């Protein structure tokens, strides 16, 4: 590492640190919930290392415990992760020129936190070279991702010791509602969330949890349409 990349690396580490307040409890919770659903400690840890995406992991575990078919579990969890494609698209103009192996590593470590920090830092520091940007990205990743694995492991070890009387079946719904609520900052987001609930309850009778896919697709379309409508209203005003 040269001096300039070392500087942006540590800049990234500093920016990533505050996220430990979110990552650690969230990882612990995933470990507990997954072992309560019947996964072994090894299976739970593998989930966090192979997939490294909290919301998608919770979705998969919830559907696994409902005995949904494999294809539905994969489709629903990947739908939750579609935003990663958006992150990937928006990082490309900044680091698209890096060597392939670096871009592959960046892809694996693209999570909400590393993306959010990087895109803000890259836009604030347009003079950074590609190696400096890559160093910053891995700086953010350094505290965040290893702690995700460790917290999952700790939660899994802890989870096998928690008795079922603690109503942990409700940990996943509460976590998701807590994640969704702060996202409801526009009319379009609120409309999409409401449509998702109504459609999911209406189509709950469909076999193999396909109602969730219907609800997701319908709610995405409604969100996009409401966004178009509200921007048109603003343009008219």
């Amino acid at each position: 590492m040269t001096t300039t990349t070392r500087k942006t690396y540590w800049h990234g580490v500093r920016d990533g640190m505050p996220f430990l307040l979110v990552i650690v409890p969230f990882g612990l919770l995933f470990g507990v919930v997954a072992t309560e659903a019947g996964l072994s400690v090894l299976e739970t840890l593998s989930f966090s290392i192979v997939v490294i995406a909290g919301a998608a992991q919770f979705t998969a575990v919830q559907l696994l415990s409902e005995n949904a078919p494999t294809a539905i579990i994969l489709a629903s969890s990947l739908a939750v992760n579609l935003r990663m494609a958006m992150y990937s698209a928006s990082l490309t103009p900044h680091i698209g020129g890096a060597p392939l192996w670096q871009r592959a590593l960046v892809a694996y470590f693209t999570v909400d936190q590393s993306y959010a920090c990087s895109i803000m830092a890259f836009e604030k520091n347009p003079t950074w070279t590609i190696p400096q940007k890559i160093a910053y990205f891995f700086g953010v990743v350094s505290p965040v991702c290893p702690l995700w694995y460790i917290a999952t492991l700790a939660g899994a070890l802890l989870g096998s010791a928690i008795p079922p009387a603690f109503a942990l079946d409700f940990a996943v719904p509460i976590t998701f509602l807590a994640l969704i609520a702060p996202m409801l900052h526009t009319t379009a987001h609120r409309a999409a969330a409401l449509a998702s609930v109504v459609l999911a309850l209406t189509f709950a009778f469909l076999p193999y949890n396909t109602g969730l896919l219907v609800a997701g697709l319908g709610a995405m379309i409604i969100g996009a349409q409401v966004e178009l409508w509200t921007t048109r209203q603003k343009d008219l005003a």
Partner: protein
Amino acid sequence: MTQIDPVTLWTVIIGLGLGSFGLRFVFTGIVGNRAMPEWVLRHLRYTAVAILPGLVAPAIMWPAATGGTPDAPRIIAAIVTVTVGYVWKNVLAAIFCGAASLYGAIYLLG
């Protein structure tokens, strides 16, 4: 609770890992600097709010733990969680208040 089949489990772990990597790599790695059409981005913006509420809505209305009968503590906890998360925009505070109201309501209402 029924046992999760290990073949299904590992298919999900590996499939989801590969799929998630694919989604993360598709632009940085393969597409390069081309811009995505606006209508695609517009739909992608709503994927999380479109899927997650639908995933938990049946679990809130018809919880497996009560055999599918709606119960007050879980509905109260859901309302508290959403309200705290929406007003304070703080995920951890919402989880904490939601869990506290769930246990409180179970204790008070039985």
